[in-house]
């Protein structure tokens, strides 16, 4: 069983302040509204605008076509928020095992035995992409494992911002593993912003250094197949993951393990044990549950109607399916 309890909380944050700790925007607005009465000012300005004043006086503000979206939106966002707040408050949330993550340790061990490096490619995107953020979490975890062994971690990157975040992350991991001496800053380096130049350079690294394990985790584009093929040809253990569906076939076919779409984010939450990520994931699962239940109910009713042609069934289904129009 993989139960994570998240009892630790940052120092200096009182436990009672649960909501505004979980939701920093509220905290920021509360703080600001105490200091600067800008909001009141903005809104009084808006009221003075004749366009606003006229628009406000008309009736029928709500777009009735979107009632269902509103109801479902409230349910879904409510579920996500609820779990985020619960997780932040220290409630343990379960998350399933993700295939591939268990092999990480084995892959690192093998690399150490063979005296070969480990290659980590964090994808093409910059830090504004969720996939890159997830990738950095995974890199941090991997670095902690590597620090325990004696192997080299090589991280070529495409964006300078990603490079600085990756360096910070890896250094932190080595530090927490008690091996700050093993950290080599130059092993995490910028290559090129150009897609194919980057791919060609990483290709060259794979062929020359023959890493024992290659990790491709993050947002990948057309270069995915070039990297996966080359890694495959030197016989490295390959673990890949991306949330970009067009690139998944190449990873699935050429790598030993592939994290498919959301699994990348789940893996990052699974390893980082970040309560808000875990809570959010749980809330998304609630959404999938809603989808499954309604698909089952909807198809069952549609089938029943198609077979019986009964008006009653149709009426019942209309009530049940109102939420999905």
């Amino acid at each position, binding site marked *: 069983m993989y139960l994570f309890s998240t009892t630790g909380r940052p120092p200096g944050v009182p436990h009672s302040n649960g909501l505004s700790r979980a*939701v*920093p*925007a*509220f905290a*920021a*607005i509360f*703080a*600001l509204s105490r200091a600067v009465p800008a909001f009141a000012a903005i809104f009084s300005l*808006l*009221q003075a605008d004749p*366009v*606003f004043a006229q*628009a*406000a006086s*008309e009736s029928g*503000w*709500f*777009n009735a076509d*979107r009632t269902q*979206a*509103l109801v479902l*939106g409230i349910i*879904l*966002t409510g579920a*996500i*928020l609820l779990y*985020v707040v619960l997780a932040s408050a220290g409630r343990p949330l379960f998350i399933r095992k993700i295939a591939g993550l268990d092999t990480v340790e084995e892959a690192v061990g093998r690399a150490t035995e063979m005296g070969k490096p480990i290659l980590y490619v964090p994808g093409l995107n910059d*830090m*504004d992409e*969720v996939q890159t*953020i997830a990738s950095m979490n995974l890199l941090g975890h991997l670095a902690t494992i590597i620090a325990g062994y004696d192997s080299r971690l090589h991280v070529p990157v495409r964006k*300078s*911002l990603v490079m600085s*975040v990756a360096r*910070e992350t890896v250094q932190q991991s080595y530090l927490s593993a008690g091996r700050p001496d093993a950290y080599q800053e130059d092993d995490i380096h910028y290559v090129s*912003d150009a897609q*194919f130049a980057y791919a060609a350079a990483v290709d060259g690294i794979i062929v020359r250094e023959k890493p024992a394990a290659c990790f491709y985790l993050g947002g990948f584009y*057309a270069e995915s*197949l*070039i990297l*996966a*093929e080359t890694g*495959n*040809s030197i016989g490295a253990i390959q673990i890949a993951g991306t*949330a970009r*569906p067009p690139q998944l076939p*190449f990873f*699935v*076919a*050429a790598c030993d393990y592939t994290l498919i*779409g*959301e699994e990348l*984010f789940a893996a990052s939450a699974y390893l980082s044990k970040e309560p*808000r990520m875990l809570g*959010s*994931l749980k*809330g*998304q699962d609630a*959404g*999938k549950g809603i989808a499954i239940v309604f698909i089952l109910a909807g198809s069952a009713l549609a089938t029943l109607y198609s077979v019986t042609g009964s008006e009653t069934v149709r009426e019942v289904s209309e009530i049940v399916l109102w939420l999905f129009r």
Partner: protein
Amino acid sequence: MRRRIPLIITFIIGVVLITGYFVTRGPFNTLYESFSDYFAIITVFAFILGGGSLLKIHLKRVSSRAADWPYSVVTLVAFLVTLVIGLFKVGNPGGMSGEILASGSWLRFMFDGVYNPLSATMFSLLAFFVASASYRAFRARTKEATILLSAALVILLGRTPVGAWMTAWMPESLAFLELPNLANWIMAWPNTAGQRAIMIGIALGVIATSLRIILGIERNYLGRGE
């Protein structure tokens, strides 16, 4: 200041845009219309930022004589020349009020003569790599990979007339097994099912991420530290 203001901006923009979706009129709707327009304008500045960063990176490389610095000179010259041609509409028959890519303008030449072959050829390289990857890396190693490969082969053959020739001998009663029909069926049903499952999953992921961003729970995009 450095942390709070961005969180508040994100919150206000996010809330206004979501509310504007449900509300048809009133101040929120006016704000919604304006923010939507402003959003588009600000994204243009991202191109300018892109050009600026490019200039900065390559100037640095040239001045520090980094490896391959002469190529940075190529980038710089290409960038500046194209920029001047584009911003001043050099050679444009309509002058400064002419259409940006008007026939005869120098920018049109840069687009048709330089940009077009470079970008098209860059992508066509993938045809070679995809073939080589198919040969060297696509193995039916596991049950999953076998399913993937089988579906891929049906699509590859079924989407060309070869597939029709290969299975033309099939009796009428088995017409649905002819490769083109099988390929179309895979696209219409199992592919739709799989894509839809992924789509619903991604939609929930986007909803959760957007919510976390608007509420300031997710703020990695602001960078770490100060």
